[in-house]
């Protein structure tokens, strides 16, 4: 039995050795073929002289008061695609992120934060600098998320910038500081659940409005359509608000920042616990 097993193992090893040059050759062939296609213009001119019709249609309709059925009243067309034209895609993408966080919390469910003492951290110069940077980071990330429909940015970009605070604090101070400030894994997960729920509620708000007003409405509907008068607010105090895009960006900001902070804290804790083999 043992002999047979060893023979199988050796055969597998030999096959692996033979496989490596084969993979390399295959990849070289693919690369050369792809390069020839690119040079000969098989994909058209790269980059193209004119953008595709879909991109052009979206650019024309992203803020178009003369075509109320297709417009989203968002000056940033990328945000308009993310939360209006392809809103369901982004909603599911957020659930994927949620699934990943839940999966990680299940994998590391045995990890409990120990009562950590005050870490020594870095020098006083670094600590003071981090304090200033944290202040600036909060302001910048919030502005990027809230202005996601007017300027480049959005909920994900703002949220990932905000999450930097966690890694900065862990490096400059210690992980204990994060727990002492009231941010625990449970709290982060609860905020995450709540934010995802709010996201789904925002998506079905037009349906509820439609039921109340006894009119037709659609899930994830942003602006009024030809056959539906239900509309999210297009402006706020003469500033473009882009309806649901603003709300989605704001919720996504919370969702993404809590997710990333959760993952950072979890990995920092687990690196301490997984330090030795076979525990």
């Amino acid at each position, binding site marked *: 039995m043992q002999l047979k*097993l060893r023979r199988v*193992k050796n055969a597998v090893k030999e096959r692996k050795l033979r496989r*490596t040059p084969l*993979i*390399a050759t295959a*990849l070289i062939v693919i*690369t050369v073929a*792809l*390069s020839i296609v*690119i*040079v000969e213009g098989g*994909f058209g*001119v*790269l*980059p*193209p*002289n*004119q*953008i*595709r019709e*879909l*991109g*052009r249609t*979206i*650019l*024309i309709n*992203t*803020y*178009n*008061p*003369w075509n109320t059925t297709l417009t989203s009243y968002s000056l*940033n*067309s*990328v945000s*308009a*695609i*993310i939360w209006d034209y*392809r809103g369901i*895609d982004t909603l599911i*993408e*957020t659930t*994927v*992120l949620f*699934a*990943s*966080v839940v999966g*990680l919390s299940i*994998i*590391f469910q045995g990890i409990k934060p120990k009562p950590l003492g005050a870490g020594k951290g870095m020098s006083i110069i670094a600590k003071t600098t981090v304090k200033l940077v944290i202040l600036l980071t909060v302001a910048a990330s919030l502005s990027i998320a809230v202005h996601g429909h007017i*300027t*480049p940015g959005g909920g*994900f*970009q703002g949220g990932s910038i905000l999450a930097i605070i966690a890694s900065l604090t862990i490096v400059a101070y210690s992980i204990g500081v994060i727990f002492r400030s009231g941010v625990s894994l449970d709290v982060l997960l609860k905020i995450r659940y709540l934010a995802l729920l709010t996201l789904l509620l925002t998506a079905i708000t037009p349906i509820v409005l439609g039921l109340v007003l006894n009119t037709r409405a659609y899930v994830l509907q942003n602006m009024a359509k030809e056959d539906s008068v239900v509309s999210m607010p297009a402006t706020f105090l003469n500033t473009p608000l882009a309806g649901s895009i603003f709300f989605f960006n704001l919720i996504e900001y919370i969702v*993404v920042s809590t997710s990333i902070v959760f*993952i950072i804290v979890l*990995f920092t804790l*687990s690196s301490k616990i997984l330090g030795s*083999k*076979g*525990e």
Partner: protein
Amino acid sequence: MDVMVFAFTAIAISFAINIAIAAYGIFTDKSLLKKLISLIIFSDTLAAFAVLIGFRLPSVLSDYPSPPILTNIPESVDYLEEISAKAVDPVPQAFIITAIVINFAVFSFLLGLLLLNYKYFGSVNVSVIEEEAGDEVY
């Protein structure tokens, strides 16, 4: 302008080579961590490739493409036509942001599994895991 076309073609080919190298790393490297790094390089190269596809080759250098964002509230359809004639394609950019979020979710989960592997086998090397796991692998 031919120089520009040549340069962009060189960039596109370099992406193809980068994808091949990353794929080679994914298939052949013994370390799971290096496999993951290769996977990240693979996906990031694809994202950069999508940005290139969505870019616009300017007909003259002064006519540099603008971002797909309106800078003023439009007062006529002409302004929208003007923007759409100058801006880069917003669709690949929107796809990439979705891809980045999903990649982040997948990679962080894989990293968690990697840590778990390290916890049980004391290594992330495929050969060591194979030895440690013994007959269970077969």
